[in-house]
């Protein structure tokens, strides 16, 4: 694939191009390319250790790839720090929840509003005026858009650390949404949830993707094949650092190698059924 700085396809939100990443002698990604288009749900599947999380960390800026390029809205963002990528409209959740356990649900989500607020040390320390107004605005946004969507009214003032795992995942999603992202990276949002919670979470993902208020493009890493095939517009199959196929769910399901590798092993992915 030719590397060029020419303007990429219009509707491609994020593109990674021939990315290599290794840790010491371990090669985690060996030339992976993917295009994520605006408005879609693009899933990445693959066995454990296939490099899915590494891929997310690279997109997100936590790792710097040794080779290859990352474009976001046509701009190269290889060297951008994670916090700058957040400001560009990327948000993510983590495989094992990384919430701030000591803070309340509201405070956790407020943190997601960080990039949308302006109050600094001085106005923050007096609190009257700008900061107080801003706090009220954010609270309104959080309550009306996020708490309502995720149905977490009953826990808004509880410390997140004391909540059950399923709710923590929900809070983490809420925190990511508070950034009002354009690209939402969801690293195994369904892992460890029970049937009911999986249904809820899948519904939230669809809501966020389709709802007028949000229209967020989602990059989803998931093990649960059923949900992945239902939700996704495109599925990217990764196996030990290499791409097997990137196509629609139907194409993926009929791909011989994929069938051999995953879909055959019913019970591996059917733990919750």
């Amino acid at each position, binding site marked *: 694939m030719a590397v060029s700085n020419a303007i990429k396809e219009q509707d491609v939100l994020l593109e990674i191009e021939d990315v290599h990443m290794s840790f010491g002698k371990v090669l985690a990604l060996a030339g992976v390319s993917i295009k994520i288009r605006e408005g879609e749900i693009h899933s990445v599947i693959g066995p454990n250790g296939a490099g899915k999380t590494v891929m997310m960390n690279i997109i997100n800026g936590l790792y710097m790839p040794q080779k290859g390029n990352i474009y976001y809205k046509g701009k190269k963002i290889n060297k951008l720090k994670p916090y700058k990528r957040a400001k560009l409209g990327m948000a993510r959740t983590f495989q094992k929840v990384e919430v701030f*356990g000591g803070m309340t649900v509201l*405070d956790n989500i407020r*943190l997601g509003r*960080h990039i949308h607020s302006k109050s600094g*040390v001085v106005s923050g320390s007096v609190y009257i005026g700008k900061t107080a107004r801003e706090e009220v605005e954010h609270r309104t946004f959080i309550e009306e858009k996020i708490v309502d969507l995720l149905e977490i009214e009953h826990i808004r003032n509880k410390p997140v650390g004391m909540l059950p795992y399923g709710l923590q995942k929900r809070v983490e999603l809420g925190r990511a949404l508070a*950034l009002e992202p354009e690209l939402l990276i969801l690293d195994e949002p369904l892992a460890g949830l029970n049937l009911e919670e999986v249904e809820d979470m899948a519904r939230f993902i669809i809501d966020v993707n389709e709802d007028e208020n949000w229209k967020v493009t989602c990059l989803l890493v998931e093990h649960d094949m059923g949900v992945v095939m239902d939700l996704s517009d495109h599925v990217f199959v990764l196996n030990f650092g290499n791409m097997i196929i990137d196509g629609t769910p139907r194409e993926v399901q009929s791909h011989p190698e994929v069938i051999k590798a995953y879909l055959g092993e019913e019970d591996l992915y059917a733990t919750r059924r």
Partner: protein
Amino acid sequence: MSTTWLPCGVYHQNYAKDHAWWQTKFIKGKMIMLFIILFVVIPLFADSYCLSVCNQVGYTILGALGVQLLIGFCGQITLGHAAFIAVGSYTSTLLILEFPWPKIMMDYGIAYPLSIIIAAVVAGLWSVLFGLPSARVKGFYLILTTMAAQFITVDFIITQYVSQIGGRGQAFSLPPGTIKVGPWIIDSDFKVYFMMLVLVIFCVIIMVNLLRSRVGRAWVAIRDNDISAEVMGINVVKYKLLAFFVAGFIGGIAGAFWISNLAAISPEHFPWFWSLWLVGVILIGGVGSIHGTIFGSIFMVVVMEVLQLAIMPLADIYPKLLMDFLFIKEAVFGLAICLFMMFEPNGLAYRWWQIKNYFNLWPFSY
């Protein structure tokens, strides 16, 4: 733990009220009582000794606030905070003694207040300088760099160079009348007390407000999980340095304030012991709690005073004790820290919270 417990029948119809500080009449009443005690009762009835103890407490609170901010709220362990207090003190002192103030500013007592602000800024910047490694260094290595800040600043730069300015030798004496705020010459415990109150309240308000707004949340996020914080769009390095600045700033205020209580300052006022003492204060008070800072300060100062009072009568029988008091103080401080860490690792603030909860949940346990 984090939200206030409201009695039945208190509800909010808008967010501003929900975000307010004091939400019930009971709390408002309590705070008014506190202010009356602080501003009226204590000054009216306390003698000079009591006031000096109060001032000591206030100084400790001001010093410990910065440590609390760094350790308790931003997770950056510091063992060299006395350096920044020293910078504040010396900046303010030098400004008063050496700077050619216009006479009017001296006469109307503007010089000293102004010097406090400048001292705070200088201390803040100095603190940022030693916070720079925090961009790359974590945990124990950061502890070492902050320790280095102490040695480099106090034991080297201040002792060897700053103290030589003006050729006064080790100690800078502050002639009576130099410390003047507006029309008042700060020359008694009584006046220092009021200045202390104003500054402590000012700094506590700053801290509390910061912590409930964007900056404070960013700090706490960095403390709890810096990777997550960065992904949320928080510029971790910037906010760490900001924390160092604010901590140094408050430390500078503490230092500049304290010269009003001293006839002369010398590097011995800011030993490493004082840095550790401040960390001890917040540990005993409770890490990550403004209440804790205040409780810890009161507790430590009062315990030491009580210790002194207890030893004084014995000194008649055994005079060496009086000389040894300093050592006893050190040993007791050390032992206190050890015992607190072992038996009350969450500090007094947690106890306080538990007691409050005990009554809030009364007559049940949850």
